[in-house]
């Protein structure tokens, strides 16, 4: 078991280093305009601009830049925002914004798991009946239609029907409902889809038939054998849900003007704020890898076979 965990930690570290390197190198190709504060773009001549860039170290060899960046990173210096919040240290911005995104993400994920699993269970229970059909319809809709369309519709129309605020307010819990629900929609579909599929797969296994032959009631067989085993492949997919939530938060936070990191990334891109884009992209990459790692840990926790094979 410890060997398994160590192996996974090592693997995640390697991935983090590679991803970090690749993304950092890609970011060297960012439009140069993104390094200038607004007023300079219009006014300064070519020579001043180059001098400005050289001054910032942006004309150095990318590896030198990477070294400097990493060194600063360990000092806690993430650089400063350029156009979105001119001259504000990015670290300060993140400290302010990460909790908002984390809060939203946490509740959406929870909602996604609870509602998604219940929906999946319902679909298995009423297989080939109306509940199953409705569930499948929902899953198909959420997965096929571009999320922006229904998210926008929810913001404009559903808010009217339930008389909910159109945008997010820090101090109005009522205004948190729509963003959290919207963010959870695709997770719900996702959990329901896979739980149903895995449970149907499990139901055809011999040991489920054997459990029935043992004389256990259907409910107990479903709970202790079918559901218990379907959870294993599902938990291997859990990190993908985190990626789902991250992707969704870019749209949701922009739509509802939520002061989180997702909204910040879209604003930074629209305003061409290179420093901010760089930090945010790297942060998302690292968070995702962390998520994948946690998923592996969870898998080891629910699947005893991993302990057996790896020791």
């Amino acid at each position, binding site marked *: 078991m410890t060997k398994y965990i160590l192996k996974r930690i090592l693997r995640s570290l390697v991935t983090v280093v590679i991803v970090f390197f690749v993304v950092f190198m890609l970011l060297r190709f960012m439009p140069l305009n993104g390094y200038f504060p607004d007023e300079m773009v219009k006014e300064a001549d070519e020579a001043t601009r180059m001098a400005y860039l050289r001054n910032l170290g942006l004309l150095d060899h990318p590896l030198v830049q990477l070294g400097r960046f990493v060194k600063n990173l360990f000092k806690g210096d993430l650089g400063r925002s350029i156009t979105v919040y001119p001259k504000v240290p990015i670290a300060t911005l993140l400290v302010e914004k990460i909790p908002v995104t984390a809060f939203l993400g946490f509740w959406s994920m929870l909602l996604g798991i609870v509602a998604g699993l219940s929906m999946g269970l319902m679909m298995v229970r009423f297989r080939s009946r109306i509940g199953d059909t409705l569930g499948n319809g929902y899953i198909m809709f959420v997965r096929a239609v571009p999320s922006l369309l229904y998210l926008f519709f929810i913001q404009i129309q559903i808010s009217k029907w339930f008389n909910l605020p159109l945008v997010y307010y820090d101090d109005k819990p009522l205004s948190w409902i729509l963003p959290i629900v919207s963010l959870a929609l695709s997770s719900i579909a996702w959990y329901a889809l896979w739980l149903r599929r895995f449970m149907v797969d499990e139901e055809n296994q011999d040991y489920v038939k054997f459990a029935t032959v043992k*004389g256990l009631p259907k409910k*107990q067989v479903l709970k202790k054998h079918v559901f218990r085993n379907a959870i294993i492949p599902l938990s291997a997919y859990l990190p993908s849900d985190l990626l789902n939530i991250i992707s969704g938060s870019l749209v949701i936070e922009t739509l509802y003007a939520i002061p989180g990191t997702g909204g910040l990334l879209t604003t930074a891109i629209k305003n061409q704020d290179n420093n901010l884009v760089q930090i945010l992209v790297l942060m998302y990459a690292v968070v995702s890898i962390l998520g994948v790692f946690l998923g592996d840990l969870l898998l080891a926790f629910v699947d*005893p*076979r991993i302990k*057996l*094979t790896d020791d």
Partner: protein
Amino acid sequence: MKKKLKSMEPADNSAVLSDDPAAQEEADLLRAYEQEIFARSEKHHNGPLLLSARDVVVRFNLRGQELTAIRSTSLDVYEGETLAIVGESGSGKSVFTKTFIGMLDKNGRIDGGELFFHGEDMAKYTTEEQWLKVRGKKIAMVFQDPMTSLNPVRTIGEQIAEVIMWHFGKSHEEAKAETIELLKKVGIHDPEKRYKQYPGEFSGGMRQRVVIATAIACRPEILICDEPTTALDVTVQAQVLDLIKSLQKELKMSVVFITHDLGVVANIADWVAVMYAGKIVEYGTANEIFKSPEHPYTKALLRSLPQLGTKGHDLYSIQGTPPSLFKQITGDAFAPRNTDAMKIDFEEEPPVFPVTDTHWARTWLLSPQAESYRASLLARDAEQQKNAVPETPFDYTNAEKLITVRDLTVRFKMGGSTFKAVNGVSFDIFKGETLSLVGESGSGKTTIGRAIMRIYTGNVGGEVTFKGSKITGKLSRQDKKKLHMEMQMIFQDPMASLNERAKVDYIISEGLYNYHLYESEEDRVAKVENILTEVGLTSEFISRFPHEFSGGQRQRIGIARSLVMNPDFLVADEPISALDVSIRAQVINLLNKMKKERSLTYLFIAHDLSAVRFISDRIAVIHKGHLVELAPCEELFAHPLHPYTKALLSAVPYPDPDSERNKVLIPYDPAMHDYSSDKPVWTEITPGHFIYGNTKELEGYRREAEA
């Protein structure tokens, strides 16, 4: 008259409805007569009647077609004895017993008949609650594959204890104590520790013991065992059979044992029911069925066993393939495959005819009207058996070596580590002989075959030569081509070895295409058609997909695919083990015929020693990657030396209840060899008899061989 009989044919429908009161009366009479015959055996059973199935019909809906899996069949299960149901795949033996426990697949239903158990008709059960009173508690079941019948992510203790807790409402602690007792009872050592382990930590045989422990946890009255040993190795199979027998006696349960293996039946059964095409065609005590079978199918099945064949002669083989149950079957379902069928067998379904009080069969041969014909058949069979003289064994004095294998080692990567599936194996194959490689699953026998065929190359050590030239390692394109033309392979699983998306024409022509071994398109087609006829299939099959064929037919297509290349040497990798009993003899005969006609040499890989004895000239026994013994066939059976060979031979089931009942298993424990300092070597101990052992062991073997 004929019309009336048809209308009461239960296969049409169990509820006989007729406008004609006379026909109705006749039908009732016939039913009463059958009941009477079934009841005759009652006083010969050990205990009272437990379960009584009457005229059960089971239908399945498959791809919009209706399949009648059970065609109105009746069976009685008495207390405290073992009843074996024998039949090949698709005969309905498994489906039939599944109705006893309400486990038919969703697309199947009981379409008639009654299932009386404790005064209730279980065929009328509709709700889960009704079945919960029976399942596990009164009737329990053991499945075929122990690797899949236990939940891999829950401890085996929990899986047994949950049954006890649910059925007896016991607390967790009590259930645990009882589970440990059960584990002890089924022969699992250190049960306290084993309780907390997962199925992955158990071997196949141990898992089947756990499954059996689960099944008997509630002291069921009937234990249904659905081919419980088919997936196990011979030595393990013998142990599990012993366990089932002793538990049956100890708990005084009834065991309904489903199998296709007549050797197993002889070992375990008190009573035998033979099933064919959804119907029980013969019923009797084990001795009666084995010693004096009456139904043509039972007779043919027994006669086609390789144990009863004479070397060098064709095995008696059953022609054709089992019938499709999608169609209405008229008369005796076996008639189309029965070369001695009478006209009436095609016309009318035979009723039950009693032989003795305990023995009946559904065949017109037992009708008083067929008496003279039956006598003539018996006389002919006796004559045939008398005349068979075994051929002289293969003469090795001037034999030419076709293949030499020296120190062959095959390594596989598993996770991080490598292991040797084959470990330093050396042997020769002589031109014209059949050398059999026998071992249990995972012993490396298939790997040897594949290494010789160059399917594995990079991980192979040692040297293989063919006709004097080395064929391991890198080869030129020309050499490879030559090898492909001279060496071919036949595979185990006829379902997996044919490309489902290609027509028979392409499958057989594949090798011809590769090396352009034909002059024109007509020539190619002619070659394909010829080889098809040679393997006993008609040339119209050429434009069909493999999907349309039965297992035996597919295997013959696979043989045709290899033979069309005109090879000198064939590796036959378990070519009959996936086939039905009634088909095996056909394929064995075909292989022998081809060997004679084309002077082939075979490397025959198998785990079934009975077929091996019939087909091979020499036998090599392999255990965990090492060859342990190699000797001419009869020599090996007469004087086995290696303890593993002895264990293997003692475990082989033989289709004779008398010898099976008195059989003594010789256990084998690899720990008995002490190879720590004295290393074992592969030695020719007497001419032609090789054995694996260290100096001390060899001395013992030598003494034994001389004695």
